[in-house]
């Protein structure tokens, strides 16, 4: 399909839509394990806000820095800043994850920074699986920047792929941060509806409250440029639940 330049908000809506076929419907944000471990239903909103203060800081910060790294790769090749020149102006594969372009090495460094801040192995594994799904979408929708490859590697985590897409397709840094936050909240809220019967409309309210909780961090996160500056917000309880989730028998959700 021919890529057309669309505004940042349209890209954000596309990427945040749970109907987007990138394999994310198997994820609950470890909510399944948390509920089994005794997290009361009425504290799920607090759980979502706790994720905003920890996991989402890492994910959103990683995405922003990856966007910057991919944009720098483009600039070094004289293809301009993200979103300014339209997707068609790009040299084929110059900044694609997996190519030999400058962007690829920089993205790998961002991925390492993300790994160091994502200590639970199941969290890294699902991050990679979701990154692969998103990369598959990118290769179809933006083939000029994400060329088909022999083999399937390298495997980059979701926030890094998201940042590379943002740089290429023109998603602004603030929209990118809010997208990561919304996606995390909606993942937990949607899983809640399958795990515990309740009012779906109330779950929508929880999503907005969680997004609001991240708002104070948006300016700072969206200005990050260096991998070393990505927040390293540990969340031992969430990491424990993510680990427990990965070995749950008869689970509904993979993660």
């Amino acid at each position: 399909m021919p890529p057309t330049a669309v505004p940042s908000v349209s890209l954000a809506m596309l990427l945040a839509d749970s109907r987007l076929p990138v394999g994310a419907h198997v994820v609950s944000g470890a909510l399944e394990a948390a509920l089994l471990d005794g997290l009361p239903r009425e504290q799920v909103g607090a759980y979502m806000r706790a994720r905003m203060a920890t996991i989402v800081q890492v994910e959103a910060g990683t995405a922003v820095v990856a966007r910057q790294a991919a944009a720098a790769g483009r600039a070094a090749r004289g293809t301009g800043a993200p979103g300014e020149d339209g997707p068609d102006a790009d040299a084929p594969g110059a900044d694609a994850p997996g190519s030999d372009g400058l962007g690829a090495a920089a993205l790998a460094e961002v991925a390492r920074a993300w790994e160091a801040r994502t200590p639970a192995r199941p969290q890294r594994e699902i991050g990679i699986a979701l990154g692969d799904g998103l990369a598959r979408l990118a290769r179809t929708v933006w083939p000029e920047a994400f060329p088909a490859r022999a083999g399937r590697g390298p495997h980059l985590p979701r926030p890094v792929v998201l940042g590379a897409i943002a740089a290429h397709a023109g998603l602004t840094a603030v929209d990118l941060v809010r997208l990561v936050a919304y996606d995390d909240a909606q993942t937990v809220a949607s899983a809640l509806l399958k795990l515990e019967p309740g009012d779906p409309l109330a779950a929508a309210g929880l999503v907005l409250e969680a997004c609001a909780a991240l708002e104070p961090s948006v300016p700072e996160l969206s200005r990050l440029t260096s991998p070393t500056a990505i927040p390293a917000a540990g969340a031992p309880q969430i990491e424990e639940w993510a680990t427990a989730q990965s070995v749950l028998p008869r689970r509904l959700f993979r993660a």
Partner: protein
Amino acid sequence: MPDTPHTHPYRSLRLGVAGPVGTGKSSLIATLCRALAAEIEIGVITNDIYTDEDARFLRSAGVLDPARIRAVETGACPHTAIRDDVTANLAAVEEMEEEFSPLDLVLVESGGDNLTATFSPALVDAQIFVLDVAGGGDVARKGGPGIARADLLVVNKTDLAPYVGVDVAQMVADAESAREGAPVLALSRSDAASVAALRSWLLGLLAAHRDGAHEPQDPGPMAPHFHAEDDEHDHSHGESHDHAHDYEHPHDHEHPHEPVPAGSGA
């Protein structure tokens, strides 16, 4: 279509197996592996709703190297994983093909779902839809996209027919009528002739795939002759139920209803 870079001159035949819960999808895959694993290279992807029970069953059946059997989790949405969002399944298929290259055949078993679940042609080249006699002789007549337009419809567990009061020949005839002549196979794993018919159908499909003569078809989300909703509608209004309605499709009347041997049309 998702990207499927043709890095090898030949890509395996990807065959989906769908059908309601308990109709014998895993057992059919075990039967296929038993019949073919000595002559072709096979991999299997299973989709359970929330376990890896099917993968365990197949591994314990001892019909294939356990490493060639992988479970994909579907987040309680088995239909989504084979149709609307095939990402996880496609990744598993590609991984399997890469690891055991060259494979001839990758079987993808859907998590048991209702009659409307079919595979996207983005995931598989062809699909088998499995019903069984124990599910009721009238199911084939009710139709649905899998029943009407899968590459092969299997009526499974024919050995149980006497115990559940189902006329297999009638059920096969109904299915053939709903499918307008597309192949229907009456199967029992204890009936060697029916297993041989299944085997030859698959080898024929594999040959067509290798020759580039096979074109993946999308059964689509809905069938043109789907009567089950009409049925429910009548009931919900408490009107006297007119059974003739179920039979108004001309094919039901035209069909000779003769006994059909196992493997007919295959």
